[in-house]
């Protein structure tokens, strides 16, 4: 595994709070810590409103962190930085957005969209070189040079997402944050884009943070997966381990909620349906945030926030069921 190297990104007790007026504070990301290693794909899953997109945007400094820190290649991402440092940062980290219909400027040609980063960083010496770079990028993502002079509306969703990927690759980044890159696409097109992202990762040695709510696709692409619930990370482990041996009750119910495209299996499957809705992140439950929907909630869950600890090697979880003294409970209550 790649985890014996130095981490590329270190997130340390990161918090991002939004002031929503009337003295209320929305804690979108609340005390999250994890590391991303070079060359890996880190999947981030959770329901809408759990803070996964906010976390992604805070990592790339689209949002300023409320507290805590993020380091990229041992340098802090947040805090005061000179213009040159900021430029360097934005070259190293790029983003692919969810909606390929909204994230491309419809009044710019494909060339201008892709070359915007090249221009901003002065990577091309002249017009000819700029165009050559755009052509090369288009071919890398499986489009061709005839597409260069067209406008975004002339492309299908999958093709647009390829343009978005080409734009991200234009400045030779090391780390790409993909925020739900495939959820706006059809199944057969999703597979095309995921295969392309995997191929590019192998060829260019990229590191991905892959944010999604589709667990089966996240499992397919990720080396390690973090599960978020209401602003905090509840479980983190290698992706196979997470699916074979989920520890947190939320992860278990999330996995059991995915419909599997296999009718016989679906008929025989015992489903653990979670009751109720996600509570409001403005006034989250005390202690463990999942306790209001958790089938195993105990008294301690309301009074104490569970500690983020390594239950098994490389498998982190925040749940009172895995406290030392509750060992017996966890064994008798496995789902």
């Amino acid at each position, binding site marked *: 595994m790649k985890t014996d190297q130095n981490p590329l990104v270190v997130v340390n007790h990161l918090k991002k709070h939004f002031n929503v007026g009337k003295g209320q504070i929305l804690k979108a990301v609340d005390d999250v810590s994890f590391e991303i290693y070079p060359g890996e794909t880190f999947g981030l899953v959770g329901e809408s409103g759990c803070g996964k997109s906010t976390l992604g945007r805070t990592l790339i400094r689209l949002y300023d962190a409320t507290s805590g820190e993020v380091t990229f290649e041992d340098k802090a991402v947040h805090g005061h930085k000179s213009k040159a440092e900021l430029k360097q940062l934005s070259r190293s980290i790029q983003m692919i957005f969810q909606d390929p219909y909204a994230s491309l400027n419809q009044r710019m040609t494909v060339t201008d969209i892709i070359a915007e980063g090249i221009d901003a960083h002065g990577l091309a010496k002249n017009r000819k070189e700029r165009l050559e770079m755009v052509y090369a990028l288009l071919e890398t993502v499986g489009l061709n040079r005839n597409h260069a002079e067209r406008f975004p509306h002339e492309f299908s969703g999958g093709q647009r997402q390829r343009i978005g990927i080409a734009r991200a690759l234009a400045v030779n980044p090391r780390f790409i944050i993909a925020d739900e890159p495939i959820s706006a696409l059809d199944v057969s097109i999703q597979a095309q884009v995921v295969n392309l992202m995997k191929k590019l990762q192998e060829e260019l040695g990229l590191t991905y943070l892959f944010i999604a709510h589709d667990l089966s696709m996240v499992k397919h692409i990720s080396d390690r997966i973090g599960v978020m619930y209401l602003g905090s990370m509840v479980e983190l482990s290698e992706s196979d381990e997470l699916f074979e041996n989920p520890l947190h009750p939320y992860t278990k119910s999330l996995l059991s909620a995915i419909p599997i*495209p296999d009718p016989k299996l679906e008929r025989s499957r015992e*489903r653990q349906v979670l009751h109720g809705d996600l509570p409001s992140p403005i006034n989250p439950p005390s202690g463990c945030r999942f306790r209001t929907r958790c089938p195993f909630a105990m008294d301690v869950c309301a009074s104490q926030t569970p500690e983020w600890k390594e239950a098994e090697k490389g498998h982190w979880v925040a749940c009172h069921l895995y406290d030392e003294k509750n060992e017996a409970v966890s064994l008798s209550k496995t789902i």
Partner: protein
Amino acid sequence: MNHLLEVKNLQVSFFTYAGEVQAVRDVSFTLAKGETLAIVGESGSGKSVTSKSIMRLLTQTAKIKQGSIMFEGKDLASLPEKQMQNIRGKDISMIFQDPMTSLNPTMTIGRQITEVLRKHHQMNGSEASRRALELLDQVGIPNPEKRLKQYPHQLSGGMRQRVVIAIALACDPQVLIADEPTTALDVTIQAQILELMKSLQQKFDTSIVLITHDLGVVANMASRVAVMYAGKIVETGSVDELFYQPKHPYTWGLLDSMPKLHEKTEELHAIPGTPPDLADPPIGCPFAARCPYTMDVCYDHMPPYTEHSDTHRAACWLQDSRAPKIDRPQAGGER
């Protein structure tokens, strides 16, 4: 078998500035009492247009060019609007994809539910409110008295979809059309809504037409499946036949492009290319341009249906006796 609903040779076109777009091209299917028929396909395959034709909710630019939709001895395709109004919402009702836009933001939940009851059952205010309370209770909304007086924005996404279901079920319809009922919802909420739909179906023996692109949802809900591509049904069969003995290469592609939760595959099977433009549909098989097994005949002639069982048929030239024998690549099917 006694069919509740029978769609025969349905053709629907949109007349736009760019010319005629043939969204639904010769679609036939039947629906029996108490069964769930799933219509799957990518966006633009005509599945929503088919369902809207049954409800006669098509826009001004669309026209049912040919075909019949038989329901209780009446042809819905040519029924006058006045009579259609007595069927819509009473005998056939619909659940839409996005509960945010399908509810009226300026009306309370109570008024929106009682509206149908007053219209179709000529109930007075207090009768209708009593029934509305019952309905909200049935769809699992806690505290229904309070909810009746609230507006849609005060409810979460899952709650809103429950309200939409309550409205759809208000008059005990015989047919319920659910157009991507869970696409806008998170997996845990999706599981809740699917469970709810199944339990209500068992209680009232409703027939459901489920429109979706999620094969997992199909495996969970459907008794029969129709696969649509470019305005045509390319394969139809019972859910087991379709998942375990699929005959059409497009169905193979759809099934294989889903990542498997319990297997590790290196590369996802992607279907290359994009669906054809229905303003100028191909004369032969619509899938020919993306199909790995295309023969000359595919481009020139639309394949006829071949019957594999009473319920299972597919439109593909590979099924013709003169075609080379090709089996579905790699071990698909049962796991």
